[in-house]
């Protein structure tokens, strides 16, 4: 009987992990917008009110419409996650809930505030006084940051569990401060916040970069590109510099994860830094190796020792090493590429007050949103897959945390199906909105003396 239950649980672990990863990977994109989209929106809104700038105001209004959709999807996919914590990982919650749950509870408060003020802001355009309305957007920025802080603190607690005493498999004492501010919090939280601002900013700017390329070079598109691009671009260099410190922190705190990231199998000095490549049976194929460079990155000297995964017993070693390594490299490459792009725009803006006109800038700019999202997703793959086989680092194995219920394969399929459809819809709907908005704009006024009258230009017909 016991072995039967054991094999059942073993069967559930792969689908459960896939479902958790898919749900989180989906939610996080919307979460990024929830955290970081209000800021560019409020900047545009502020400009619109302060300088009586119709283009900026129109942008802010339309962005808030898109945000309504994004926020609703973020809210439901987040609700799905909070159920899944229990449906998929009952042992994790049942044992560690008293510690792990605390940051989630605080997150709950901030997202509640965020949800409420989102509603006020979204539906307040017509009847609230303009500046009061602007101020109802400010809590969105603050609660987004605080909420992200709490939920990422929960994740970093999984990486560096602290602040509790365990006896006979039960938590007997908890120190909430030590849970919230564990050793990984100062690295993960800022890195994630910057990532959120990059994702939201570059993705929004990318939309207007496409418009710009297609010849819609008016003030509306110029502002629509510049405001989010600048918020994201400012974060890019900070992110790359900070990411470097994160990597060094990982080397200290989770050496085996770092070993997987850098293909270090046995502990030694003069470690080669591999760019790309695939590790098979002790050899790296297709990679570009820089001798000694990994040791230099870690300890500023070729003699610095780096811990390899062979230092751990086989069942504690990281799995899927290639995935972790490649995801890490992808994140770094994309981070540097985005940095270059931002610097280019910075340069041209500084000296010429313009958006670079060349395709060499505009095409990458149109792809920058996708790049930021990819970098962020790969970062999470590094964090989550790199931590395996542990859910709670060195405390609880993923295979011990999984539910004993059968039925996960079914919910996995349902999750994948629903989220696949949802992804299409989320892309389709803003696209439809944009098309409708374009149709209500008089055609580009370049040279044209008389723009057609816009008599029935509405964003929304009255509800049916």
């Amino acid at each position, binding site marked *: 009987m016991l072995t039967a239950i054991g094999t059942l649980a073993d069967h559930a672990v792969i689908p459960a992990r896939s479902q958790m990863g898919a749900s989180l990977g989906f939610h996080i994109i919307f979460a990024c917008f929830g955290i970081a989209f209000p800021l560019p929106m409020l900047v545009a809104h502020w400009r619109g009110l302060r300088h009586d700038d119709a283009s900026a105001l129109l942008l802010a209004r339309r962005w808030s419409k898109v945000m309504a959709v994004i926020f*609703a999807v973020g809210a439901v996919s987040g609700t799905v996650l909070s159920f899944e914590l229990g449906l998929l990982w009952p042992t994790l919650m049942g044992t560690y809930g*008293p510690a792990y749950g605390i940051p989630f509870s605080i997150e709950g408060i901030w997202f509640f505030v965020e949800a409420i003020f989102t509603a006020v802001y979204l539906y307040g355009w017509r009847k609230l006084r303009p500046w009061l309305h602007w101020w109802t957007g400010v809590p969105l920025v603050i609660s987004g940051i605080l909420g992200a802080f709490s939920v990422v603190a929960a994740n970093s607690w999984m990486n560096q569990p602290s602040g509790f005493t365990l006896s006979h498999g039960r938590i*007997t004492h908890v120190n909430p401060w030590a849970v919230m501010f564990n050793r990984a919090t100062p690295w993960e939280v800022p890195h994630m916040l910057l990532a959120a601002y990059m994702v939201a900013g570059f993705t929004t700017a990318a939309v207007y970069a496409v418009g710009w390329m297609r010849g819609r070079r008016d003030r509306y598109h110029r502002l629509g590109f510049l405001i989010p691009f600048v918020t994201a671009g400012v974060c890019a260099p900070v992110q790359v510099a900070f990411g470097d410190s994160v990597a060094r922190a990982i080397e200290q705190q989770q050496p085996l994860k770092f070993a997987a990231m850098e293909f270090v199998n046995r502990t030694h000095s003069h470690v080669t830094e591999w760019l790309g490549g695939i590790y098979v049976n002790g050899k790296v194929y297709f990679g570009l190796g820089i001798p000694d460079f990994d040791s230099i990155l870690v300890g500023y000297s070729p003699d610095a020792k780096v811990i390899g995964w062979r230092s751990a017993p086989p069942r504690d070693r990281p799995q899927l090493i290639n995935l972790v390594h490649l995801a890490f490299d992808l994140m770094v490459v994309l981070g540097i590429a985005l940095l270059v792009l931002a610097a280019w725009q910075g340069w041209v803006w500084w000296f010429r007050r313009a958006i670079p006109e060349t395709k060499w800038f505009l095409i990458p700019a149109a792809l920058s949103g996708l790049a930021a999202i990819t970098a962020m997703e790969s970062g999470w793959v590094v964090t989550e897959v790199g931590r395996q086989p542990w859910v709670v680092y060195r405390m609880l194995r993923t295979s011990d945390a999984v539910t004993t219920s059968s039925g996960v394969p079914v919910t996995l399929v349902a999750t994948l199906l629903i989220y696949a459809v949802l992804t299409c819809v989320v892309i389709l709907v803003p696209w439809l909105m944009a098309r409708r908005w374009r149709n209500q704009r008089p055609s580009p006024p370049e040279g044209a003396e008389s723009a057609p009258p816009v008599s029935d*230009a509405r964003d929304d017909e009255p509800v049916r």
Partner: protein
Amino acid sequence: MTQPWQAVVVGIALFATMAAYALFTGADFGGGIWDLLAGGTERGRRPRTAIDASVTPVWEGNQTWIVLGIVLVFTAFPTAFAAIMTSLFVPLSLALLGILLRGIGFAFRHEADRVRTEQSAGALFAASSFLAPFFLGVTVGAVATGRVRTDRTGNVPDAWLNPSALMTGALFVAACAYIGAVYLVGDSHRRGDEGMVRYFSKRALAAGVVTGVFAGINLVFLHNDAPYVFHRLVGAALPLLIVSIVAGATALGLVLIRRVWLLRITAGVAVGAVVAAWGWAQYPYLLPTSLSLREGSAPTASLNAELVVLVMAAVFVVPSFVYLYWLQQHEKLVVTEESGDLVRAVARENKTAARPKRPHRVLEAMVIGAAAWELLREAVARMRRK
């Protein structure tokens, strides 16, 4: 056996959260139910418009109550949480499906209207309004039966495939329909839409009667399936139950004589009292009769942290929530809005505005020159050193 006071307070807060969920999100689900039952496109237009205007602005905020409830359970009562989530995997997954579909329907409804998928999207939205309350009710009923225990592994079908759990699900659906109709009566009254007041009054009355009948039947089922909860319901918790019954009956009368605010309050009292009665009937058990509060609650520091979270909720969430409803009740939140004036202004602006150009070509050339000069000097210096 006394229970730790922190656990009792967090438990009360948990039930208060559930009551809030029942009232506010229940009204949402109820709106969805009446939407589904409103008939064909033409006939259902007016009620649907009313439902949309009442439910949409507050949907976002209501959604979060259940999340607050879940985090309270897994932090304060983790073992019960793990047992419930394991044993009732199936009904909870279905409830989650309902919540997910409900949100999707909500998010895309307005856009969907334009591309003529209205019917299917509307149906999705509305069907999920049955799914979610039904399976949440089933979960509650299953816990009451005492068949969710910490010593069982895997799915436990007999915990929820029994008359009283299923009846509790049906009861939840009826109650949502009732709360939704009562809420809509009030909103229609405020908007001065006499026709809709009559329309939703009729439905509130019907749903109220059905809810009462279901509750009565369920009491009989509970007698068999959930002896502990039944005996406390007709024992210690009886006063609360009576309050609920009296309030419910009064509310039916108030529907007839159109006292809108009094109606909302009494309906709220009826729901609140029944949730309280259920909580009191379970006391002191989290899972009757296998896990008590004392055995099942987290260490004191975690409970204290939850108390802090509750204070934060009182300071940050409750005022914001009240503000949201205040705005909604004063018709300050409008679902539609026109930007025609702005679009025109932008068009004018783009026609006239010559964009200011302040290129610093000279400065740019100087910086590039300086950088090139530095590089060159560096290179030359290196060559010399070699």
